[in-house]
């Protein structure tokens, strides 16, 4: 067996956040090589480097023993690397043949389409796909679109096929069929890289597996001689025992989410009758693989998205499922969204504008005709001191100039300044360094101790485990399992992937 694709010492960072650090990978022709890891472990980033999408800051890409520098995706394609991304790169109103022609550039349309049509027929027959080259892509199912993507890269002459979480969008039967096809491809001589976080796929279909954690390669193993428990252990890291914590006196339900369903933009259901409750003085953690409805749940709770059916009930507010964002709602529910600059802060506005915005409607900062900038700035200045927001030269500076951690502190300062009864935090430490992350966690724990009901939605299992009193596991828009503190990390990990 020959090594087709080797990545050595790859390093890549975005805006100072290191996503790949000395990552290694080596895939052989004729085998399915799984790349396993949690969300954000760097799997997709590493393969985006191989596909020429990201230029690595350090390290080497070796193809068939020859070290190369990729100038971009087209060069990667010319070198036989084909990647099927999680989000398909297809032009929806084009036909299958047009899409494939577009990706495998021939300048002549008419003759190009003719050649491509023949190539598609040949390739689909080999793979056992039933693809009509003249169907428009937007009339195909997701599984068929994926087949088009695979045919697209193979028609382009790919010898190394990278599939990024290919089964995430498929039903079980479709997934099985796909993985068997991929196995056949490998036996015919293609090097297949299968990015996944599903253990059973690795065990059943992969010839070897590389495990990544926090941007680093942890191990490369033969899955047939490794147990699922060992793989889980390597994926999630060391299991640490959590300190016991005093339960707050048993208090009443503060927030109740009942059978909440919510549609995505494309009509598919992001939330399917999600049900849970949160007591006053507890942190309810929601764990899960990202993309299972957490974002939609957070948005529904924060008032950014209207649920289709179900109920959101908050003590003293009542049923707020379909209510517009009112002053009372803002006063009771603190929202700490995952993406600070989409729902919490406006980068182009000043710190004081960003801080005061939630209280403007209450009349604290002047009437409709008059804006009391003085009070806004004084309040902001004192909050900045109290919540230790660093790197501020003036309350008039733009919020976009704050670092991630300090922007998050500003959001927390604003949201907590109103004495809320419920806190909804979605990945509150995403993109923060250890110190800022710790500060955020301390704030959440302090809120809990003050008797606030905290919902912590996070894809970082460590965060959920260390902070939560109770943990719900979210899969495909449902809470599929609940765990009391101290929860068993392995059990939660299994619940996250078993239902996926």
């Amino acid at each position, binding site marked *: 067996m020959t090594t087709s694709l080797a990545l050595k010492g790859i390093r890549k960072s*975005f805006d100072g956040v290191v996503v790949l650090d000395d990552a290694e990978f080596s895939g052989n022709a004729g085998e399915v090589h799984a790349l396993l890891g949690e969300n954000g472990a760097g799997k997709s980033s590493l393969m985006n480097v191989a596909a*020429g*999408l*990201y*230029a690595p800051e350090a390290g080497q890409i070796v193809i068939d023993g020859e070290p*190369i*520098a*990729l*100038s*971009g*995706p*087209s*060069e990667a394609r*010319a070198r036989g690397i084909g990647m099927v991304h999680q989000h398909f790169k297809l032009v929806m109103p084009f036909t299958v043949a047009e899409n494939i022609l577009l990706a495998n550039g021939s300048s002549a349309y008419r003759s190009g389409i003719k050649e491509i049509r023949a190539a598609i027929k040949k390739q689909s027959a080999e793979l056992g796909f039933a693809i009509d080259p003249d169907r428009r892509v937007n009339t195909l199912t997701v599984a068929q679109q994926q087949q088009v993507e695979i045919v697209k890269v193979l028609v382009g002459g790919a010898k190394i096929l990278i599939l990024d979480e290919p089964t995430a969008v498929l039903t079980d039967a479709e997934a099985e069929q796909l993985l068997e096809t991929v196995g056949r491809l490998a036996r015919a001589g293609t090097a297949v890289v299968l990015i996944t976080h599903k253990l059973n796929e690795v065990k059943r279909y992969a010839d070897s597996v590389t495990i990544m954690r926090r941007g680093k390669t942890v191990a490369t193993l033969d899955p047939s001689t490794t147990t699922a428990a060992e793989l889980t252990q390597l994926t999630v890291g060391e299991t640490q025992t959590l300190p016991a914590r005093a339960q707050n006196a048993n208090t009443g339900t503060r927030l109740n989410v009942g059978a909440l369903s919510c549609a995505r933009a494309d009509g598919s259901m992001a939330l399917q009758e999600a049900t849970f409750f949160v007591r006053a003085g507890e942190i309810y953690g929601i764990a899960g693989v990202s993309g299972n409805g957490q974002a939609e749940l957070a948005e529904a709770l*924060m*008032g*950014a998205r209207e649920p289709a059916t179900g109920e959101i009930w908050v003590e003293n507010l009542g049923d707020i499922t379909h209510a517009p*964002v*009112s*002053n009372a*709602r*803002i006063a009771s529910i603190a*929202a700490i*969204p995952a993406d600070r*600059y*989409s*729902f*919490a*802060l*406006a*980068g*182009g*506005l000043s710190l004081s*504008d960003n801080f005061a*915005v*939630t209280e*403007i*409607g209450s009349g604290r*900062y*002047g*009437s*409709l*005709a*008059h*804006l009391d900038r003085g009070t806004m700035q004084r309040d902001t200045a004192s909050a900045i001191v109290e919540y230790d927001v660093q790197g501020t030269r003036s309350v008039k500076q*733009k919020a*976009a*100039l704050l670092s991630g951690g300090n922007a998050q502190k500003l959001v927390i300062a604003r949201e907590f300044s109103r004495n809320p009864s419920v806190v909804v935090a979605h990945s509150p430490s995403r993109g923060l360094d250890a110190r800022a992350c710790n500060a955020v966690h301390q704030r959440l724990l302090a809120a809990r101790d003050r008797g606030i009901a905290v919902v912590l939605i996070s894809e970082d299992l460590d965060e959920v485990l260390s902070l939560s009193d109770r943990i719900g596991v979210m899969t495909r828009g449902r809470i599929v399992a609940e765990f009391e503190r101290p929860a068993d990390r392995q059990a939660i990990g299994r619940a996250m992937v078993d239902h996926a």
Partner: protein
Amino acid sequence: MHDVSALSPESRTNVKPNPTHFRLVLDVRQSLPAWKQALFLAGSLAVGLAISVAILAVAGISPIQLGSELIGVFNADSLRAVLVQAAPLMLVGLGASIAFRIGFWNLGLEGQMLFGGIFAAAVSIYQIGPPETRLLLMGVASAIGGALWCLLAGFLKINFRVNEIIATLLLNYVAVYFLFHLLYGAWQDARSAFPQSTPFKPFERLSDLGFGINSGLLVSVAAITAAAWLVHFSRVGFYMRVISANRSMAKVVGVPIQTVTLWIVAISGACAGIAGFVNVASQEGRLTQSFANGYVFSGVLIAFLSRNDPIAVAVVGFLIAVLFITGQTLQVFYQIPFTMVQLIEAIIVMSVASSEFFVRHRVRWIR
């Protein structure tokens, strides 16, 4: 997250790695100091003006002649004409800029001007109210007319998601033909063969206050002042900033987006309506069929150049008025068609629009 640097056009065409090839790298800027932004703006403006001067030179006006004509504008008579012309320009510019501030692309300024003029003329024709308050009533009616015509597009946007660019633009035509319907029919001056209404009575006209200042200018300066206060010192202005800075955040933090939008749409239309009133009650003295021609273009240009700031609208409005009056002079003395003025406006809009790209991106050639 896309690594833009890896997607340079060079890499698409040049598959074989070439150690000496250059590539164009585009970075998105995080922020740019205000003075640099002003520099880019000034630079693009200079480019636009240079192209305009070149085109005029080809049309037969040497830069020297052009310069003397421009200076000539600042004699007493021409200055009066400039100030009369500045009033409606400032008002349409204000109408455009206020709507643009919250991302409502009001391209129906002409239609709203027409309805402003029609409503004002209606007050005159049906002799509503005593002579002392007639002019005031005409002004109020014009604001209502413009506001209603603009709200129609706002209503379509909010309730049926009709793109306001399309709605406002097409409603211009509806307004024009409604005006024609009046001027070729019920409202046509019986003593005139032209499609125009009976002249307004002296007390129905905006008078000259002396020193070259027309009372229409006072109306527009008052509107500018009110808008500057609204935008900079009121809660509504704060809401507008939040809506334009981050709409999804505005929703989550409880900004009444819909109410604010409807009010701003109404105010925008009202400004254009008053501009229509100022035109018919000062320059024309009656309802004519062309008193709003070309104003949507000027309004957008003024809003663009002023970065939607009311005070800057006043300054830019004045400068565009200078351009208008110079254009009229060129038309008379050099037989240059007046469309040349619109051509120059268009060139300036495009230059300023392209400066936006350089404000947001940094372009570098690297090896």
